[in-house]
């Protein structure tokens, strides 16, 4: 009796699995698929950028689409936004008065932020066979980034905006949560970003940081 019951349970489990496979299908990545991803981006200034703002940005996101031209190679585009913000209680900053050539120093509490809107072409290479739930990849993005830097001391404000070059290599992994005709995955990555943006008197703003997002592909 107990044996028969066990057989029924095993059969039920297998049947439910078969049903699930029939419903979702086990597809994995394949040529011709499109991957969409919406990511939350954390980015910390490194290098000279730290002389403008040291705080990490927790307010960042990216939206990307990747088309698999081969089973393990995708090309696509990405739009991203990041904001860095910091208030210094007391610092001195060099100033130049426009027109007069006069130079000077401003000392006091300073508020700064820097926004960057990036538009990049992206290419990714997927490692392994792509049949497991874990799909590691390496990739890079290249394009343009609009940077807006603002700093204020008392009621004096200084702004800079410019359009700059951006390149951003990354390593990551897609962890499949649901598989089927349309599959959903967790996107985890770590990205280094180099730009030619020069907020304040710094040059070539660079950042590093993790990315967490949701991706789905079909």
């Amino acid at each position, binding site marked *: 009796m107990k044996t028969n019951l066990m057989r029924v349970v095993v059969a039920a489990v297998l049947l439910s699995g078969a049903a699930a496979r029939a419903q979702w299908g086990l597809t994995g990545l394949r040529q011709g698929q499109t991957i969409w991803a919406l990511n939350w981006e954390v980015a910390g200034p490194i290098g000279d950028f730290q002389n403008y703002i040291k705080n990490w940005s927790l*307010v960042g996101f990216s939206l990307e689409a990747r088309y698999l031209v081969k089973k393990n190679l995708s090309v696509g585009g990405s739009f991203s936004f990041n904001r860095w913000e910091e208030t210094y209680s007391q610092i001195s900053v060099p100033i130049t008065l426009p027109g007069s*050539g006069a*130079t000077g120093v401003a000392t*006091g*509490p300073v508020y700064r932020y820097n926004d960057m809107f990036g538009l990049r072409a992206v290419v990714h290479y997927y490692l392994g066979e792509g049949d497991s739930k874990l799909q590691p990849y390496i990739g890079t993005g290249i394009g343009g980034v609009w940077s807006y830097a603002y700093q204020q001391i*008392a009621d004096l404000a200084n702004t800079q905006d410019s359009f700059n070059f951006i390149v951003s290599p990354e390593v990551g992994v897609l962890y499949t949560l649901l598989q089927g005709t349309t599959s959903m995955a967790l996107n985890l990555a770590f990205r280094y970003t180099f730009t030619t943006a020069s907020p304040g008197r710094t040059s070539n703003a660079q950042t590093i940081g993790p990315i967490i997002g949701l991706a789905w592909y079909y």
Partner: protein
Amino acid sequence: MIYRSAAFLLLLSLPAFNLACTGYGAPSEVVNGTATITVESGTPPSWASYTTFTITPTIQVYDNTGGQQDAYRRDAESIIPKIAENMTRRGYQYIQSPQPPADPPVTHLVITLYAYLGSQAYGGVYCNWYYWGYPYGCYPTWGYYGTYNFGTLIMQMGDRKNAPPPNTGPVALIWGSATYGVLGTQQYNLQRVLTSIDQAFAQSPFIQR
């Protein structure tokens, strides 16, 4: 399928766009903080060539606290010693100015004092989309309005040594200092004023005989 995915992504993106559209604003410690700005002439003079200086005995005040601009003078005796101390420490000789209408002494350098008092309201829709030419692209709730109380002390240093004859008119300004937020009615504190004078000279090490 592609349109549905794009639409779904955009829907998911709304909170992110919301974040990107939130207003910016410097904290009050910045807006109402004390800041000292010093500026040197674009063609720096030879500071070692000057020997004497004087300070105007009064502060020319431009007062907007009553809603209209009033101009009057206030005695500067509480701050003159601090300015004179900084200059003499740099090697210059102080010659005191008599109260008007007596003529000021003839010195190489003359320091004049001004104060701006009052407040101004500012505000509007602070939104990053504004910079792309859509001032109302974000919901107006994110607008930021406030009042900035300015109480600014200004020191200006003029070069009378090299002024063209007959040396009775305006002289070339070779250095200026503006300290924001020290003379407002809510914030006036003599010690902060004196500290800001020290700060103005500290960030101008080139003033040296």
